[in-house]
């Protein structure tokens, strides 16, 4: 039987060799512990890292846990590292916003909402693994339905799609 500290160290080692968020389920299967107990350990670690003054922290992203660096260290890391992928265009962000709220949604439904064609943008977003095909709408032509991916959540620092602000929140605000 392993002690809590041993288990925590094992979990830490798993998080350390991952650059994608690990879910409670994935970790629990590897360490052979119930999901509840695993979640408790992950939460413990999460809180420890929140308190500690270290060079990286544990983030809850895309339904999982991932070690990331802190914002304030970016200027130093950028000296070591090349800048990351280019930012998304406004058109891509508007398209993503619609897909995030209306998923699953077809291309032509997005085009209706944005008032412009989005075929090229859709390919870019698929290419960057931010959206994916999630099925087909029944009916003529059986058009492809799109939804957001876990990478989408990670890219925008979200743990859960429900963390997005409700669009109705903006409805009342006068521009």
């Amino acid at each position, binding site marked *: 039987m392993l002690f809590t500290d041993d288990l925590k160290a094992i979990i830490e080692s798993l998080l*350390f*060799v*991952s*650059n994608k968020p690990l879910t409670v389920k994935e970790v629990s299967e590897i360490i052979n512990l119930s999901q509840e107990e695993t979640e408790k350990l992950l939460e413990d670690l999460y809180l420890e890292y929140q308190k500690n003054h270290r060079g990286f922290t544990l*983030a809850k992203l895309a339904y999982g846990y*991932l*070690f*990331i*660096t*802190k*914002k304030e260290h*970016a200027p130093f*890391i950028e000296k070591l*590292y090349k800048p*990351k992928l280019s*930012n*998304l265009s*406004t*058109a891509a*962000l*508007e398209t*993503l*916003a*619609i897909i*995030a*709220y209306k998923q699953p949604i077809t291309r032509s439904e997005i085009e209706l*909402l*944005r*008032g*412009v*064609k989005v*075929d*090229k943008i859709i*390919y870019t977003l698929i290419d960057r693994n931010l959206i994916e095909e999630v099925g087909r709408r029944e009916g003529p032509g059986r058009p492809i339905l799109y939804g957001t991916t876990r990478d989408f959540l990670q*890219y*925008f*620092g*979200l743990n859960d799609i429900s963390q*997005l*602000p409700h*669009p*109705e929140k*903006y*409805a009342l*605000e006068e*521009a």
Partner: protein
Amino acid sequence: MDTTKYQIQLENFQGPLDLLLHLIEKNEVDIYDIPIAQITDQYLDYINEAKNFDLDVASEFLVMAATLLAIKAKMLLPKPPKVDNEDLEEDPREELVARLIEYRQYKQVAYYLREKEQEMSTVFVRDIDESKIIKDFEPVNPVSNVSLQDLWKHFKAILDRASELVPVYELEKEEIAITQCMAWILDGLNNQPQGLSFKGLFTGRTTRIRLIMTFLALLELIKQNKIRCRQNKIFGDIQIYLAEDCEI
């Protein structure tokens, strides 16, 4: 008309809805009570001022122009006499207003996403060298569930794909390639408004699939009226032009 007012390029807008929202904000008018005549005039001024813009973009803006003009016309018509059991008169602007409000919401969400993106661009994950990690493991047979026959089947599948004409089962996948080829041809024409040579399009494209896709892209562009072709003599080279640059 004072053209300096319209220095802003159409390309700066994310589409006709975006331009309309800009005009509504600029005029500081109530989105629920848009002065349609005034906004329509300004909208049309923008369109008229826009030069050499993308045909795709243009059609989207023109559709909205038509919608605006239709609403304006309806608002000018004398109102029908009130019917007793129908208290609410339908406002011709209603549908457009609903679209604008919904679009504005997503625009706000897009701003939110932009902020989150900026925030996340300052955090880094570990740059993991997988090969270093796995080198100490017990060697895993990466092809344990693959037989020699599987290997041959995969190879044959590729040979078939590369040598056949567009196979039926590949069409869907290749849809991407057609749009890419279309974009590629249009880009070429935008850079070279004097036209492209038909032969030139097919030199240097090495795979059969690409040749076919380029040809299909040409047919599609002709069908969509975006390009025109001209052949000056029999068996001579065919010149391809953007439809707007071509006078026949």
